[in-house]
């Protein structure tokens, strides 16, 4: 081509000689094929990603709008037999922070937050000074406060739902209900014993959220949350209150160290009340001491003393060794076995078996006990549950101590007949007395309310024997007996006192445990009530004077609460006006 300054005539573009170069046809086809191949490769890759191996992309896509959220479940309630609330969970918030982000708050924001959380700014700074990536600023914050904190939109401060446990009945039922830790885990009492059923199991759901964070659709599998089961105790909060307040009064008026009381329904072995003193407030557990936490009625054993005597008498009656009115010579109030001497608190002369129980003669009981082999006595103690776990499923239950009969010496057999040299817990004692109340059958105890199905006991004594022992127990609360103060106006009751020395470091100290176990009403037993007062030091120390009045008050109130028809003629002189409690 020749370049000219001014071409004479321009030729059309298509006539450009460059375009008229004849290229070989395969070259264009080659390019076309290559483009086609690249395109096919893309299609194949696309097909592969979208259809064959689509998991990865699907997941990436889902993660843009799908969310797994946890659905919280609450811990089960604990209620008494009438449905009154004993323990209930209510939602709270815990405020947590990412310290690195939260430190960017300015001074006024910090002040606001600290004020809402009722803590000082310095305290708050201390928490945020941590180099961790997660700190709890404050737990168990009321939901209203938490929502005000969220409204401040502070950097790095977040909240989370949690539950707090409340105990409306407080110290009254503290030992039986127990309590949970901050993490909703049972630490004591029923809360611990029934942890598995009370526990709520959170569920999960997968949802689609829109741009504003609203949930627009449920997708995928749903795992419904399971709230914890409601536990209905056998406890009657009214009787519990009676037991608790009278026990407290008895401990205080006798200047005692501690005490315990149990009320059992003899028809089915339900525990209607179980109170201990000293106690604590489960809603505020700062400054707790071991003594307050102790559930004495279940976990402590003691030498019961004379409350054991009816068992010895029952065994003798059952084996036909004595009759109700067999006379036993208890004079002169002392009995020497080997090189040890047993004595009575007040010397008696000749007494019938019934009077031995009524007047609580150690000598008489020992004489009865020496009439049968050690093995028979051991078997009787064993069959009424001494030396065995009460099987309530309650934490800290104890066996007590019942030594094997093979190495009993005669003096030991004699002392055991009146309750020394054997250790039992109050709950074991109360359960053992159900054999007298339930016509010779030992009832299994239950913390939970039972449905109306009849409960079968284990036969230990014949109905005849148990009736005779009940008559003896009723004699013990007559004016000639050891516990006239245990009488209940309007009802016939019976029971046995116990005054035992405490063992400290292996020797008997001059400290006492006063107890009373009674049955009410005698004509058709409904309740067994056991009261134990540890170290009474207000002058009186006999079971009849210390624990007897508490029994009387508890029994009177409980019988009235249960609507049991009085079975005794009213004795006008004995009804103290306006002295009873609600």
């Amino acid at each position, binding site marked *: 081509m020749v370049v000219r300054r001014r071409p004479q005539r321009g030729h059309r573009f298509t006539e450009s000689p460059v375009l008229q170069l004849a290229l070989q046809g395969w070259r264009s086809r080659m390019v076309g094929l290559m483009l086609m191949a690249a395109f096919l490769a893309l299609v194949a890759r696309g097909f592969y990603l979208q259809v064959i191996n689509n998991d990865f992309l699907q997941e990436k896509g889902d993660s843009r709008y799908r969310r797994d959220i946890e659905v919280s479940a609450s811990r089960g309630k604990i209620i008494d037999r*009438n449905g*009154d*609330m004993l323990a*209930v*969970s*209510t*939602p709270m918030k815990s405020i947590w922070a990412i310290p690195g982000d939260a430190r960017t708050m300015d001074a006024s924001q910090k002040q606001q937050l600290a004020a809402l959380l009722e803590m000082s700014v310095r305290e708050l700074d201390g928490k945020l000074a941590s180099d961790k990536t997660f700190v709890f600023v404050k737990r168990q914050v009321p939901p209203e406060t938490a929502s005000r904190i969220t409204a401040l939109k502070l950097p790095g401060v977040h909240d989370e739902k949690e539950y707090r446990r*409340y105990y*409306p*009945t*407080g110290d*009254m039922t503290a030992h039986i209900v127990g309590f949970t830790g901050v993490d909703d885990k049972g630490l004591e009492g029923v809360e611990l014993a029934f942890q598995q059923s009370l526990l709520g199991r959170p569920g999960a759901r997968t949802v689609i959220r*829109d741009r504003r964070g*609203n*949930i*627009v*659709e*449920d997708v995928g599998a749903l795992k419904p949350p399971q709230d914890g089961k409601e536990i209905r105790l056998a406890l009657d*909060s*009214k009787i519990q*209150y009676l037991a608790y*307040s009278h026990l407290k009064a008895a401990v205080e008026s006798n200047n005692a160290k501690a005490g315990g009381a149990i009320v059992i329904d003899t028809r089915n072995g339900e525990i209607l009340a179980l109170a201990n003193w000293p106690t604590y407030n489960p809603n505020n557990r700062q400054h707790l001491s071991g003594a307050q936490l102790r559930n004495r009625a279940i976990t402590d054993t003691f030498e019961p003393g004379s409350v054991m005597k009816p068992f010895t008498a029952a065994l003798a009656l059952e084996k036909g060794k004595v009759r109700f009115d067999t006379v036993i010579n208890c004079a002169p109030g002392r009995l020497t076995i080997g090189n040890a001497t047993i004595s009575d608190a007040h010397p008696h002369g000749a007494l019938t078996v019934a009077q031995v129980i009524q007047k609580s003669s150690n000598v008489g009981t020992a004489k009865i006990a020496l009439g049968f082999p050690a093995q028979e006595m051991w078997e009787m103690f064993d069959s009424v549950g001494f030396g065995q776990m009460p099987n309530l499923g309650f934490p800290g239950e104890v066996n007590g101590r019942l030594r094997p009969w093979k190495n009993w010496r005669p003096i030991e057999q004699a002392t055991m007949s009146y309750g020394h040299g054997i250790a039992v817990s109050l709950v074991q004692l109360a359960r053992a007395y159900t054999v007298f109340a339930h016509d010779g059958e030992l009832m299994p105890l239950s913390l939970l309310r039972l449905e109306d199905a009849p409960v079968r006991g284990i036969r230990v004594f014949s109905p005849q024997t148990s009736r005779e022992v009940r008559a003896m127990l009723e004699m013990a609360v007559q004016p000639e007996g050891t516990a006239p103060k245990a009488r209940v*106006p*309007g009802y016939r009751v019976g029971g046995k006192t116990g005054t035992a020395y405490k063992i400290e470091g292996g020797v008997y100290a001059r400290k006492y445990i006063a107890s009373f176990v009674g049955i009410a009403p005698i004509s058709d037993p409904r309740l067994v009530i056991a009261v134990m007062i540890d170290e009474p030091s207000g002058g009186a120390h006999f079971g009849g004077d210390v624990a007897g009045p508490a029994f009387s008050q508890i029994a009177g109130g409980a019988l*009235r*609460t*249960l*609507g*049991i*028809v*009085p079975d005794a003629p*009213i004795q*006008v002189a*004995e*009804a*103290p*006006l*306006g*002295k*009873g*409690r*609600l």
Partner: protein
Amino acid sequence: MVRFNMILLLTVVICALGVVTSQHRARKLFQALEGEQERARQLDVEYGQLQLEMSTWATHPRIEKIARDRLHMVTPDAIGRVVTPAAPAPVKKAAR
């Protein structure tokens, strides 16, 4: 043929819009449901709190204190009591 195709196309478009609308409405309804469920949960929580409050007000020590100190009530002695055969129910009612 072209007309038939056009009709089909139109049908497809209408169906597609229908799907979109119903999906949208489903989501709206779902949100409403979600809101109501949240409200139910809230009310449930409130109910629990009120129950708690009620049982706190109704503790036996408090009732006894009010009965004795403010209302000057006393427990009737054995003479002042009449026990009817159907006693348990009224006694429980009175306890609340």
